[in-house]
């Protein structure tokens, strides 16, 4: 463990590699976390099925690759399919838990997560899968740092998608309705906004964003039916650290998480990767609690 740590100082070039990989993967984490922030902020539903939507999107790209298509085509396909899936889930489950207590929505989405991961497991089996993009891998900085083209492309795609969503939220009629509902659902209803439709749209949009993130993950990393829970926890870490409605914060936290995972994977060993994510979750929650207890003391 300490060997690897000293390696980082002896050969600083490793840092560049870890940073780059961390940023590439972190951008995708941030994308999925943005979807969670959306659902959390607008509907106050903590979606524990977040990571499983990501994995589902990943399997869509994987299936397309199996059929001989390029996995990048999976991006629009997964977006549309997951949007429809999100709508169905909303109508069947989420609509009925939206005004109930928070644990209900948490547990209901956990149930959805279990169903999704187990169905995927039945269809694809528990092996780790990836979709080959077929792009080349470049070496830079004197052949010491490798950058796969697909990572760069997915980074740009993630950024482009995030920008498109931001513009959509700011400019489009639906985006405005979503923001109005987030501010005050009752007032929005009085103003003639069909809040039920807005909620359905928000949840579906979240599923679609997750699906797209999953496609990118399949191309640059691996997917497996049971990796969903880790992705959910990642999204929770990012959103809890950044707070919802804080897009720059979500992006920074996402990139930071990606880098932190790369470093812990390198220094501690790959088996600690999940422990790192979960440990960060606990750390973020504790930090939040300390912050809150300060607020409580001010009130006293």
């Amino acid at each position: 463990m300490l060997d690897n740590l000293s390696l980082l100082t002896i050969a600083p070039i490793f840092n560049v590699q870890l940073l780059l990989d961390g940023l590439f993967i972190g951008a995708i984490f941030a994308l999925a976390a943005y979807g969670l922030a959306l659902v959390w902020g607008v509907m106050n539903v903590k979606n524990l099925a977040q990571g499983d939507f990501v994995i589902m999107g990943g399997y869509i790209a994987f299936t397309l690759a199996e059929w001989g298509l390029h996995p990048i085509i999976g991006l629009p396909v997964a977006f549309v399919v997951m949007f429809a899936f999100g709508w169905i889930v909303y109508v069947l489950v989420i609509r009925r838990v939206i005004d109930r207590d928070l644990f209900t929505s948490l547990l209901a989405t956990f149930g959805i997560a279990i169903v999704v991961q187990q169905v995927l497991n039945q269809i694809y089996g528990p092996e780790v899968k990836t979709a080959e993009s077929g792009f080349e891998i470049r070496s830079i900085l004197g052949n010491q740092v490798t950058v796969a083209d697909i990572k760069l492309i997915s980074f740009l795609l993630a950024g482009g998608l995030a920008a498109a969503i931001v513009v959509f939220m700011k400019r489009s009629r639906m985006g405005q309705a979503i923001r109005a509902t987030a501010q005050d659902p009752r007032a929005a209803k009085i103003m003639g906004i069909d809040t039920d439709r807005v909620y359905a749209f928000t949840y579906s949009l979240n599923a679609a964003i997750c699906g797209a993130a999953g496609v990118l993950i399949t191309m640059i990393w691996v997917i497996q039916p049971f990796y969903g829970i880790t992705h959910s926890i990642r999204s929770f870490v990012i959103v809890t650290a950044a707070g919802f409605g804080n897009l720059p914060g979500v992006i920074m936290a996402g990139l930071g998480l990606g880098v932190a995972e790369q470093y812990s994977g390198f220094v501690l060993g790959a088996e600690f990767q999940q422990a790192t994510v979960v440990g960060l979750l606990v750390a973020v929650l504790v930090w939040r609690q300390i912050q809150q207890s300060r607020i409580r003391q001010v009130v006293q």
Partner: protein
Amino acid sequence: MNVETRRLGLYGLLLGAGIFAPLVFPAYTSQVAVLWIMILFALTWDVMGGQMGYNSLGNILFFGAGMYISAVVQIGLYYDVGEYTSAFGAVKVDWTMSQYLTGIAVGLVAAAVISALLAVIFGWIVFGLRGPYFAIGTLGVAIAAGELVSAWEWVGAGGGISMPVYPGEPDDRSLIFYFLSLASAVATFVFLRWLYTTRFKLAINAIRDDEEKAEAMGIHTLRYKTVAWAVAAFFLGISGAIFGNMIGFIEPLEVAFPTVTFGIFMVVMSLLGGKGTIWGPVIGATLFHVIKEVTWTHLLGWQWVALGLLIIVNVVYFQQGLLGWAQDKWPELFGIVVEDRDRAADGSGGDDAGAARRAAE
């Protein structure tokens, strides 16, 4: 025949059924033993989730902790734990009967006490979290515990530990663990039933209904929350120790810290039976376990999908649980006198279906 004798008769009948079950149906001993553990799970989850309104998704932490503590104590009393685990059970170690029984006795006590202490320590970390943050935080702690144990060489890491082998007849062994499970579940039930007649129950119910107001009324909420969690952890630690010995081989992710199986089963069972009651978790656990045992093998891998669907349907469409539903339907059977005014106020809430009902519990 008044209510009290009828109740005693019912308890006697159930206890008798529990004691004679393995003698009448010896083939099902281990399944019924697991049923008692499940009942214990649901009851201990309900202390926090039902009575106090703190929905923990990570109570399985103490189950696993108890299992490992007991294993380490049982082995550590007579051998070097690091040496024993590094051999992955390849070293044949014989235990005399007295060694074995002392090990289990000391292991059970240690598992219970240390698990309760762990609850106090983790309470500091997680009790500032409210609502969904608490649920996610406890889930995180439980997953982290599993991951850390599977990286800890001294307790066998991911390879696990094979528990001491029982020196006597295999049939005796299953009976011993059957009666230990039965005793632990009965002890939990009796203790909680007593606990729910004290002021403690009123205090934790006050925390559930409105924590800020409870605090304003002078209830030391953190202390009550910690004690409630420690009580749950105490019994969960015992159940972990028993289960580990019953299985004979323990391993961190699937056996000791199974967050998505046993950890969720506890919640589902309590909700199925009706949370916030003493009989709800018992009925829910029995029903769930029987359904699971009967249907599981016929579903060929789709059982987990069915479990997920059960959770969704349970939470979304049937949240008051069986007992809650029965109490709404036939309140007079439960000795509840409902005035019309209360009924109008109660009828609306699916989750908070009636303070009157809880008062009568």
